[in-house]
């Protein structure tokens, strides 16, 4: 598209964002403020992720965009089309293994990531403490002092009331033993994939104007108690399409009489398995 720089943002803005990202990588899990720009997509649609992707991507990259694990969800399609439009030469793919940059909303792909890949998370709310302390001036102090007793109290309360930890998504993690971090609203099922991942994980929150990062092979521990260890949750079932029993599943309602089936939320993973199964038959 004429009239716009490669990947929409001007080079000075990209440099500013990359500088903030370098700081974020240097201090894993720490939220770095950045001069988030107005984007042609609304806040909440992934403006943070888009700005991060736009700043790190080059014409020789291969981009994959997923939303809820799927390449074909409306928002994923929209963002992929946006980059195809504003980044001439950029290749796009739906294959996790082929991608160099993967922008995601709410999932981590099932296929393990490798060195050299960058996973860009869209983050609606970077502050993991916001439900307990809404004032960001105060949460900043709590982070500076590593004063996270409040979050542990919340987990205690969950167990006391419900017998288990209540957060099934966006379950807070400690990064590198220092900073409490929101993993973004990924299901708790995906939390363990962050731990010592070979890929670089970048997080962008456009509306809240914060970036943060988890460098490759960094320790990422989900908050829990010794006697109530963190348990990743998934629906108890198998994918109706590929038969997977270990992937994260979406529930699909088939009628209004209680009928429902489960399918893999990761469409690429599911497609690969179906292809392999057909080849084997």
């Amino acid at each position: 598209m004429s009239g716009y720089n490669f990947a929409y943002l001007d080079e000075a803005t990209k440099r500013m964002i990359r500088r903030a990202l370098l700081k974020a990588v240097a201090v894993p899990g720490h939220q770095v403020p950045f001069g988030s720009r107005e984007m042609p997509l609304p806040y909440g649609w992934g403006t943070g992720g888009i700005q991060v992707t736009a700043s790190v991507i080059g014409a020789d990259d291969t981009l994959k965009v997923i939303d809820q694990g799927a390449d074909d969800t409306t928002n994923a399609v929209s963002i992929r089309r946006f980059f195809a439009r504003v980044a001439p030469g950029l290749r796009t793919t739906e294959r996790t293994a082929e991608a160099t940059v993967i922008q995601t909303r709410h999932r981590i792909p099932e296929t393990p990531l490798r060195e050299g890949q960058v996973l860009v998370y869209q983050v609606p709310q970077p502050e993991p403490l916001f439900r307990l302390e809404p004032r960001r001036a105060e949460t900043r102090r709590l982070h500076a002092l590593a004063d996270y007793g409040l979050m542990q109290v919340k987990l205690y309360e969950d167990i006391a009331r419900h017998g288990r930890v209540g957060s099934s998504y966006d379950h807070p993690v400690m990064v590198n033993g220092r900073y409490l971090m929101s993993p973004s609203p990924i299901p708790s099922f995906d939390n363990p994939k962050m731990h010592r991942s070979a890929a670089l994980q970048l997080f962008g929150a456009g509306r809240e104007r914060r970036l943060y990062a988890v460098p490759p092979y960094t320790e990422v521990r989900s908050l829990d108690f010794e006697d109530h260890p963190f348990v990743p949750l998934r629906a108890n079932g198998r994918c109706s399409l590929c038969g997977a029993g270990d992937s994260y599943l979406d529930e699909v309602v088939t009628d209004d009489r209680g009928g429902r089936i489960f399918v893999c939320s990761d469409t690429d993973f599911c497609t690969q398995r179906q292809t392999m199964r057909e080849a084997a038959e």
Partner: protein
Amino acid sequence: MSDGPILSARDVSIAFGAVRAVDGVSLDLWPGEVLAVVGESGSGKSTLLRLLAGEARPDAGTVLYRDPSGATLDVHGMGEPARRRLARTEWGFVHQDPRDGLRLAVSAGGNVGERLMASGARHYGDIRTEAARWLERVEIPAARIDDAPRLFSGGMRQRLQIARTLVTRPRLVFMDEPTGGLDVSVQARLLDMIRALVADLGIAVILVTHDIAAARLLAHRLVVMRHGRVVEEGLTDRVLDDPRHPYTQLLVSSVLAA
């Protein structure tokens, strides 16, 4: 017991505009000792407590704390991270209004457990057991462990605040009118409980109160404040039975008259 005071203040002063709220106060607190600061409201005693606890910074003077290793730390020079760490481990603060010292929406167990978790406890069962033990110690039925303190009476809230503060066995506790705002019958029971717990745990306490009877019951030593200054100090019995400063005589006689 130890070679020096656990807390020493020297020439501590603070002014609010033209008002010298605390004016050149010096005092020492020894390990295991209960020191009461008495005076009328407006005498500067609560402000002094906040200065001693590091919650406010004095215009002049120093406050030194002696940690368990015997090292001397400057309370106002140590920086906020270190002070906050102290505040949730070796120190405690009991507020007059329990709402200031409790999380009203968090269960009683969570309130007591918070300090344990803040100092690294990560075993839910152990935290809960310890919380239950402390609730019993302050005479709150263990069955109420999952109730939020907003459902509690004023006296119960105050006892919960004390459990929450003492659960990590602090060495030094600051108390600001802990029985203020409670019924007289509730006050007596609470004072007995505080006296037993403090003696049992060997905690050093600075108690700010306008209540001479409370001071007589709990304190080993007394400091009498007026207009931001210490006008008299000494052993509790000596000060109350043989007050020397006219202001102290007035304070003591008014309580006798009451």
